[in-house]
């Protein structure tokens, strides 16, 4: 167990390093973008004077390294600063969106993870059967359509017929069940997008093990095919499955801008694109760090779970 804690500690430190690198990369990239927040806010009405006034107000006149260090100093003190454009604390601006993003990600995960694992296990169980081939072809087809296309099709079928709303309007008073109902189409879209990958990996991971002597042993003990797969193959295939699930969860958190736009879902992705467009660098940085943290943490959780579920790593000789 100590080793796990040591690993977690080491990985968290590495994660912090990663976050630092990312903040530098993102800051550098946004610096390279043409224009700045003052120009974006004033647009074409910008006269040199108003620009100068606004730049002064926004603190844009400091050299870039100074601004970065100021930001870093704040973050190290737990202060992510305020949005340059709205003067709102970033925590407040991002907080609600983060909640929405996590809700959608978890919702989609709750649909897609069981579904893809089940399909993957069944496809492995009945490999090369019609079911296997059909589910494989369908999965491939679903990932080869652009996300927005899948979304529009679902809207055409499920929203225009009045079954589900075509857009998600979440307010403070939205109840959980309303959220579930309204979020169904975006979650379903994401489910279709990520299921294929997880399903194929699950199937491959299991089939990969089916040639193992212990699987043959289980068969020779008279175990049913389902039991062989579930009890003997799946526990040993957990590591790759957990990893692919983590990867897709990270995608569900960080990569769903398009779905957010189509379903008018107020998530972090749209906020980040918005902030990039507006050159609101503290917001961009904050969201980039959230995304990166999600990625790092999910990978960490995946590795910890892979370790915990692997007796060879958990119970040393």
């Amino acid at each position, binding site marked *: 167990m100590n080793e796990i804690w040591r690993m977690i500690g080491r990985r968290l430190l590495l994660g912090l390093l990663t976050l630092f690198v990312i903040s530098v990369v993102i800051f550098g990239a946004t610096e390279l973008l043409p224009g700045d927040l003052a120009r974006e806010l004033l647009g074409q009405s910008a006269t040199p004077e108003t620009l100068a006034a606004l730049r002064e107000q926004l603190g844009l006149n400091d050299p870039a390294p100074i601004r970065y260090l100021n930001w870093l100093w704040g973050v190290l003190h737990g202060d992510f600063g305020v949005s340059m454009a709205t003067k709102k604390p970033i925590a407040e601006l991002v907080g609600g969106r983060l909640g929405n993003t996590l809700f959608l990600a978890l919702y989609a995960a709750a649909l897609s993870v069981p579904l893809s694992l089940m399909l993957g296990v069944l496809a492995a169980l009945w490999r090369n059967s019609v079911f296997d081939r059909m589910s494989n072809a369908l999965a491939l087809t679903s990932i080869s359509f652009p996300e927005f296309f899948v979304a529009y099709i679902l809207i055409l079928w499920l929203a225009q017929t009045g079954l589900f709303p075509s857009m998600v309007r979440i307010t403070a008073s939205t109840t959980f069940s309303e959220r579930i109902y309204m979020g169904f189409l975006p979650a379903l879209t994401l489910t279709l997008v990520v299921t294929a990958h997880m399903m194929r990996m699950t199937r491959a991971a299991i089939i990969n093990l*089916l040639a193992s002597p212990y699987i043959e042993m289980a068969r020779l*003990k008279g*175990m049913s095919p389902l039991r062989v797969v579930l009890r003997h193959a799946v526990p040993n295939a957990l590591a790759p499955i957990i990893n692919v699930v983590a990867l897709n969860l990270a995608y569900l958190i960080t990569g769903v801008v398009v779905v957010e736009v189509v379903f008018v879902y107020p998530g972090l992705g749209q906020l980040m694109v918005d902030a990039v467009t507006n050159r609101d660098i503290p917001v961009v940085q904050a969201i980039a760090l959230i995304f990166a943290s999600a990625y790092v943490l999910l990978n960490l959780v995946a590795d910890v779970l892979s370790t915990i579920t692997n*007796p060879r790593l958990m*119970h040393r000789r």
Partner: protein
Amino acid sequence: MEKQVLLTIRDLKIEGRSGDAWHQIVKGVDLTLHKGEVLGLIGESGAGKSTLGLAAMGYARDGCRISGGSIDFDGIDLRAAPEADRRALRGKRIAYVAQSAAASFNPAHKLIDQYCEGPVVHGVMPREKAEADAVELYRRMRLPNPDEIGFRYPHQVSGGQLQRAMTAMAMSCRPDLIIFDEPTTALDVTTQIEVLAAIRDIVRQFGTAAIYITHDLAVVAQMADRIKVLLRGDEVEESDTRSMLAAPREDYTRSLWAVRSFARPALPAATGTPVVSVRNVTAGYGAVDVLKDVSFDIHARRTVAVVGESGSGKSTTARVITGLLPPRKGEILFNGKPLPPSFKARSREELRQCQMIYQMADTALNPKLRLRELIGRPAEMYLGLKGRALETRIRDLLALIELEPDKYIDRLPSELSGGQKQRIGIARALAAEPQMIICDEVTSALDQIVQEGILKLLDRLQGELNLAYMFITHDLATVKSIADEVVVMQHGQVVERGPKAELFAAPKEDYTNLLLSSVPEMDLDWLNRLLAARGEHA
């Protein structure tokens, strides 16, 4: 008293698929087994012994199919019975013990969980009872700490113990028949003894019938009542063990008996500067010293056999000599001059002089390269051969290892048999024209007759090319046949070293003695005598 017949196999044919085509693996074999009887199945790889053993369970591996004949187990037609019925028999009335227990235990579950799975799923007994039963059987199998060993995961238990735990697991439903598929092949000789004894006892105690599959005659002689010899899917002959040993009818059986006919007399001790001299080497990984103060010399045209069980440090010694593992203390002299400790610091010429042949030809040959490049590359690299000269050299080398150049030069390793692959490993080493070759268990993955061929080849080449060999092996029979000098290792230390004849005739150390006595002998009572002598068991 005529015993009741348990299993009857008639004219069984099993086919295996390669690509589109099916070819026969088992070509019409008959087999009869009585209750409580142990039948030994013996043959080389490809003889179809395992396939036949599995067929006794009504089971064919993926890519195989039972295409003809009948299998009757205690009145049940296993070919005609529905899969569910067959499944109900497996594990319950017919159990299986696999060759590698380490690979055949599911790494994800504790031993006792795997033990209990069969009885519980087959409805033989409830979980609590099965657990108690497991402890009892572990005790009978003479496993250490029988009360708690079941709560360990497979990787926490040693190979010999796992093999006994697997036999216990096979016994869990008190089956009528157990198939033992080479259960001791992967074990060290000293461990093998314990496992053989335990298996024999438990089978006798429960009066279980067994099919004991092995390639090792000496082993099967200890275990079986009757022996059936297979060759390429056909039965060669069958008779009771005693008469089979005393008077085999067929030539093939006799040739199996005549293993290790090859033995060359040891050459006199060499003088002068050794080609390689290992001087007081201490080496290891991390904080652990795997080698402690190891010293020995290897002279030109001499073979030094390094013997020991797994974990004794034999292969690590090879890694130190090749420079893969720089030693902590000590040094390696080559023709009297010290070699740089790491291979990275060695010159190309120094690298050329010492070549290595690996145990697993499968992993030692790049599966994506053709023989031309596999063999040609060292010649091209070290000797600067190009074009026609290189081609000629490759063909010469192929001829040297007795492979027809035209036929083989453009093949991939996957298109070769195990013995041929090992020959390519030899050719690759020879291509560098070295003074010394390290042979790391080069024969242990091969059938005995193939081993013989490789050993003869190596011997011939040594004479022709004046090579020095360091021969790493755990197989004392190999040592007997090829070594000039023997170095016995245990726990990273040299236990004893000396000329072969002296060492075999009068081992000075206890360990050497133990090692030598553990090698199975072609004698029905060898195991009994040995156990009696060691006072472990009557």
